[in-house]
């Protein structure tokens, strides 16, 4: 089966104030159709850049992205639009404030230029209903809608061409908690109904656990751990993943604030440490971590990039 998304050795860096910032520093992954890959990581990890590379909004420095088996580079923009669409984080800047909702949602159809206007209009109204918006919303401007409603509009726009893949870049992070849940439920329902594949980017681990089937943890431009969702949350192998999970504050008054043991250092993609990029903050780092880049260890459908994860001769994880 052709994977829905395949990424091979993707690199991308930027020039910022004279320094080279390695945003995506060698990422390879493969996402099967119908799956949801959750990509988690904190600021500076490169997940948003990765999202834009996969969508073809940014050209890679090197490496390639294949969508549905076809190379993204050089793909006709209309064909690409039919394959992969985004839902962005900020509902206030992802909709053109001067356009009406029906034009915003209809833009992908108009860009295809294939269907008569009336049919386009029908598809737009149908999609608005599907995402739970009443038909009178079509004539409104984004400024008249709430954050949750705007995000529904963004989802409607992303789905109106019935793409194979939807890249969700923190789609609920800017929303209130009660609205977040509405949108997440909507996304889950739509995936089932329309047979979609999601790339779901988030810094919120609990949300990812809810919606993803597979999770990749990014740190300073690389995937340091990847595993099926239950396995990752039950038994995280990489020290960074463990620290991330331990930092999540569950609403349990009996517990205090955990000491995750990461130290004062912060990740700076302009100054990536030598050796294992996590070692300055790692509570389990030892001398070799500062000099040797750990290999990708792949085993049993899991991936870990850590010197500690080198399996002893008998097998199994450290």
């Amino acid at each position, binding site marked *: 089966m052709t994977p829905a998304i395949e990424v091979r050795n993707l690199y991308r860096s930027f020039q910022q104030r004279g320094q080279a910032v390695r945003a995506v520093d060698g990422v390879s992954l493969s996402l099967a159709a119908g799956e949801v890959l959750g990509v988690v990581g*904190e*600021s500076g990890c490169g997940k948003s850049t990765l999202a834009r590379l996969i969508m073809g909004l940014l050209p890679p420095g090197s490496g390639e992205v294949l969508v549905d088996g076809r190379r993204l580079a050089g793909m006709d923009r209309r064909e690409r639009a039919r394959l992969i669409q985004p839902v962005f984080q900020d509902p206030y800047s992802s909709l053109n404030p001067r356009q009406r909702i029906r034009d915003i949602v209809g833009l992908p159809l108009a860009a295809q230029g294939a269907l008569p206007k009336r049919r386009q209009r029908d598809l737009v109204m149908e999609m608005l209903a599907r995402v739970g918006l009443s038909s009178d919303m079509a004539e409104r401007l984004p400024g008249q809608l*709430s954050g*949750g*409603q705007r995000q529904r509009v963004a989802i409607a726009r992303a789905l109106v061409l019935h793409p194979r893949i939807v890249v969700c870049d923190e789609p609920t992070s800017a929303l*209130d*908690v*009660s*609205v*977040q*849940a*509405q949108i*997440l*439920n909507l996304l*889950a*329902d739509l995936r089932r109904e329309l047979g979609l594949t999601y790339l779901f980017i988030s*810094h919120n*681990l*609990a*949300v990812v*656990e*809810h919606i993803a089937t597979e999770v990749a943890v990014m740190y300073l431009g690389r995937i340091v751990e990847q595993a099926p*969702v239950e396995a990752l*949350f039950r038994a995280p192998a990489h020290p960074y993943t463990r*620290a*991330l*999970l*331990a*930092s*999540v*504050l*569950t*609403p*349990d*008054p*009996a*517990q*205090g*604030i*955990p*000491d*995750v043991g*990461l130290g*004062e250092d*912060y990740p*700076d993609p302009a100054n990536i440490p030598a050796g294992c990029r996590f070692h300055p903050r790692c509570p389990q780092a030892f001398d070799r971590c500062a000099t040797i880049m750990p290999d990708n260890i792949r085993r049993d459908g899991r991936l870990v990039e850590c010197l500690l994860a080198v399996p002893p001769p008998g097998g199994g994880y450290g």
Partner: protein
Amino acid sequence: MSDTILSIGDLRVKFGDRTEAVRGLSLSVARGETHCIVGESGCGKSVTSLAVMGLLARGAIRSADHIRFRDQDLLGLPERAMARLRGDKIAMIFQEPMTSLNPAYTIGSQMAEVFERHRGAGRRAALDRAAELLERVGISGPGMRLGQYPHQLSGGLRQRVMIAMALMCDPELLIADEPTTALDVTVQAQILRLLQKLQRELGLAMLLITHDLGVVARMAQRVSVMYAGQVVESAPVSDLFAAPTHPYTRGLLACIPVPGTVRRGDPLGSIPGVVPRIPPGFVGCGFRDRCAWALPECARAVPLRQASAGHTYLCRLMPDEVRP
């Protein structure tokens, strides 16, 4: 009680004649206690903190039965006297460390300014104090940091600097408005640990505003849940999570996915509808349009009920009616 540092009675804030942001908020914070105000956007929690500090925009009308800092009335206090309190006995830290610090001045000069202004100290003494506090908040190499500019520091470091700056004059009350929302989750844990430690060491009273119930659970002793300008539920923290009574509180708790308890395939609990804007003259429960238990009587005045000792809520339902 001489132990009560902050006491607010029936605070109301209106913006012109268009919105009522706060409709009758009462709470108190004791010495050494963390009181969390939790709510989503538009509930009035930030406006409350600004109202206490006297930092509301022009056009905002503030009224209350009383706002007291220790025995001192804040409500009628002239601006000059209020300015003397701010940064000295009452300190505030904000959400965005990027914009809370002035990018044109060094860390040292911004921190020193607070001390020089309130204590009449000289620059040398102020900088020494600043270095001392930077150490206290866990920043190594404080001497070097004093000479740095805000853009040279990461978000987590900047927030530590904000905390240190707030502590320059030994405040008795710290108001923190979403202090960790803009930070990564690993940094959030560090900053919150720091706040807790400092509070214990200094006996600070802390009013912590957040939308994150996880933060509330781990940090607060008392919680006020706000919705549409009112405190819909107020309780000691363990009571709130053990026996949430107001339908909004219960709805909110149901919305939050907790790692490890997630049952895949089940939809997340959610609250239908959106947070309303309250026009002036609004009567009744602000939550009624989204509440599964709403009845016509909810459009009239809502009774304040008691669930247990120290645990009150604003709803027509009796405690045993809510819990299944």
